[in-house]
Every structure is written in C-alpha cells, then in structure tokens.
C-alpha cells in the first residue's frame, strides 16, 4: 500500500515558521532560549527553527543536540542502538528555557528519556517540547507545547518524516506499518 503524503515541502516550511513564531511568542523573545534537537531528525529541525527565530529576532539563537539513547527504558529489548552526538551550546542550560525538538511525538518515551538527560546536564528554568507531528497514542503523561500537525493515526499506521538534510526531501508520509 502506498504511503500518503500528509505534509509536502511547502507545508513543512510553513509549519517550521509557525513553531518559530510560537516559541518567540511564548518566551517573549529569544533571550534565554536554547533549542536542543533529539537525533536523528530533531537535530536539523531544531536548527531550522533556530535559524527562523534568528532571522526574525536579528541575532543567533543557541541550538544543540541531545542524544537520549543511554536514557531509554528499552535497553536490552531492542539491541544496541548507535549513539549520536550530544552537543550542548557552550553557555550551558542552567536557567535557560530549553526547547526540545523532535520529529514525531508518539508514546512519549523518547521525551521522558530526554527529560532525564536534560536533568543530568543542568537545571533549566523551563523545558518545553516542539514536534513536527503529534500522532497520538501516548503511554506517558507528556504533551507537546508546539505541534506542527496533529495527525490522528491507528497503531497499524506508520508516520515517516523526511527532511532535506537527512533524506533529500521535506515531507511527512502516512503509511501502513509493513510498508515502512
């Protein structure tokens, strides 16, 4: 079964712009805001959002990456995962507003791991969550502050986010699990 494209390149661009505006609005400007992307696709997403915020604000917005592999709750169940880089901006995260950025919000377990990881790095003033797609089916009491698109799905479906940086194209696809 072919996957349906639910967001195309223009949609992805628009959504990133909207999230950038929302973050600025909620934080009353970019001061004290740090964006941390969760690998793999959260990292380029965070960079794009930060770039958009910087062009609106006129000055750079600190952005980094946060690998959560070692904080996951399924170690030993799914085999070893390769680690990605954790790259925290030099100023650190103490007293900052950390915005975690990921591509898809699903069970919430990745975000739970990310919250633990943040906790080991410093003590931010607040932690917020921005995602490109929220597909539902939460298994933990976690919600996103900024959502690009709410996409009701069944568990039999799969959501695939493609970005130019990692996949050569910007799009979000909805397909069946087996075709993914």
């Amino acid at each position: 079964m072919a996957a349906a494209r639910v967001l195309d390149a223009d949609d992805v661009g628009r959504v990133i712009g909207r999230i950038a505006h929302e973050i600025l609005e909620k934080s009353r400007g970019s001061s004290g805001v740090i964006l941390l992307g969760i690998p793999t696709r959260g990292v380029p997403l965070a960079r794009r959002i930060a770039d958009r915020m910087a062009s609106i604000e006129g000055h750079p917005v600190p952005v980094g990456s946060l690998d959560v592999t070692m904080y996951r709750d399924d170690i030993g169940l799914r085999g070893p995962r390769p680690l990605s880089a954790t790259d925290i901006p030099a100023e650190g995260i103490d007293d900052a507003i950390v915005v975690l950025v990921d591509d898809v919000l699903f069970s919430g377990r990745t975000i739970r791991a990310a919250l633990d990881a943040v906790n080991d790095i410093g003590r931010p003033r607040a932690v917020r969550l921005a995602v490109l797609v929220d597909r539902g089916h939460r298994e933990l009491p976690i919600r996103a502050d900024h959502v690009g698109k709410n996409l009701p799905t069944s568990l039999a479906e799969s959501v695939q986010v493609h970005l130019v940086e990692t996949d050569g194209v910007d799009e979000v696809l909805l397909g069946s699990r087996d075709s993914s």
Partner: protein
Amino acid sequence: MKHLLSAADLDREEALTLLDTAEELASVTDRAVKKLPTLRGRTVANLFFEDSTRTRLSFEAAAKRLSADVITFTAKGSSVSKGETLKDTALTLEAMGAQVIVLRHHASGAAQRLAESGWIGASVINAGDGTHEHPTQALLDAYTLRQHLRGGSGDLQGLRVVIVGDILHSRVARSDVALLTTLGARVTLVAPPTLVPVGVESWNCDVTFDFDDALSDADAVMMLRVQSERMNAAYFPSAHEYSRRYGLDSMRAAQLPDHAVVLHPGPMNRGMEITAEVADGHRALIVDQVANGVSVRMAVLYQVLSSEEGAA
C-alpha cells in the same frame, strides 16, 4: 554482541561502532553528573583470577558510570585462592544475578571456554586470558591512537605502529595486531627472536629483530612490559642487554618522527623497557590510555548488555 572474547572476532564495523560509542561516552566525564542511567538494575561481575588492579578498577569505573551494580571477585582472599574452579565461581556469580562476567584469567581461552561451555547464560567479557588476548586493551589503544593521530574519528588506515617486547607471552600484542590491522594500520613487531611466537609469519604484520630499523617511519610505538620471570628463563642474557637492544630511551625516541606517540599498557618497568625520561615525556600517552580505558569499557558494557535479551 553477546560476548567480547577476542579482538580478532571484531570486524571493522563492529570495532568502529565501539570506538564511536566510546567517543560519545567520553563526554560524560566532563559533565557535572558523571553517570548515565543506562544499565541501572544490571549487575556486572568482575571475576579476576589474576591480579590486575588497573584493569579491574577501569571496568568498575565503567560499570558504575553506566549505573550498573558491580560485584568483584579477586584471587586474593576469596574462594578463588582456596581452589574453587572457574566453573563454580562463575555459577556463584550468576546465581547472585550477574548478567555479564568480566573475566581475567591466567589460562588462555578461559573467557571463550566460560562463554561456550554452557555453564552459564551470562555474557562474558575477556579482560585478559593467559597469553592469548586482551581485547579491551586493544580497543583503548586504537582509541588513543585515533584520538591523537586521526582526530578522533574514522579508522587507522595507513598508520604505522611498532610493538616492542615480549610478543610471545603478550596478550596485548595479539589483540593489538588483530584490531589495529582490522582498522587499517600496519603493525611491525620488534622483539628478540626468543620472544617471537612460532608461526608469526602467518600474522598480518611485519617482524624485525632490530628496534632501530623500525623507528624512523613509526607513527606510534607501543612498549610491552617484560615480566621478571622471563629474565630467569634464558629468553635473553640479562636485563641490561635487553634494555640496551629493545628499550626505548631518549636516544631512540629522538629518531622517531616529530608527531610519533608512545604507548605502554602498564604497569611499566621504568629503566627496563622504557626510560623515565620517555615515559614522562611529551610523546607519552600512557595516562591518556588509562582514561580512555574507562570510555572504551563503557562502550563494551553497553554493547554487550544492550544485546543481552536476544536482540540483534
């Protein structure tokens, strides 16, 4: 990776995954909280039939940084010294909940035997077996060489590494030859002919009896410890002659290219295989090796324990 028994078992991809993982884990050392929750609730047993304080402490530190519980059995003052066998000790540790056994043993092949005998279901990490292998030492050597000579990423293609000393009895040399060549390095072994294993021609490396011949194009020199018992077994005439022909002093170090580094797995016999001047000099990475040992062993524990429940 259910077990780590031999550096020869690692292919290039597996070796690079371990080194890359270690590279990421090394950053934990720089954080305020020097601990990851990854292996919370898992138990790592250090089973040391031979004394090796530095390897044992390194594995302990690695396990603790990943939040694992650690049980340590060492030869002195335990049932091991009362003649309990490898099998029975391992069964005891597994009964205490150990999911991985880090084994140091005087018998070559002890780790493989423990892993394959069916005695236990736990994973086994070889922390040195007789005169066979010491794979985590090779990993930390490769890591250290990569960090200093290859910018901390990729393989060791084209790197020229000279390993000097008692090759015959060295588990470090066997593991280093296997791993460094897998990663693309060219290894030259230097030793008196009495300390070169029979059949070394089949090893994937060069052999020379003349240390000075090997110096001028070396990127790295690894000095091996000479055990005192070899001196009494006619492998060479005297410590003095050994030191003169195969020791690394400042005269020899001066013949090395400027960028070349010096490694030693420790513990050193200062004045025997290496002079204090070289050991403490700017080329020496001996302290770096120790620090890197913890990161590499964290990576190994993570790879082994995250594979334990039948996952790929």
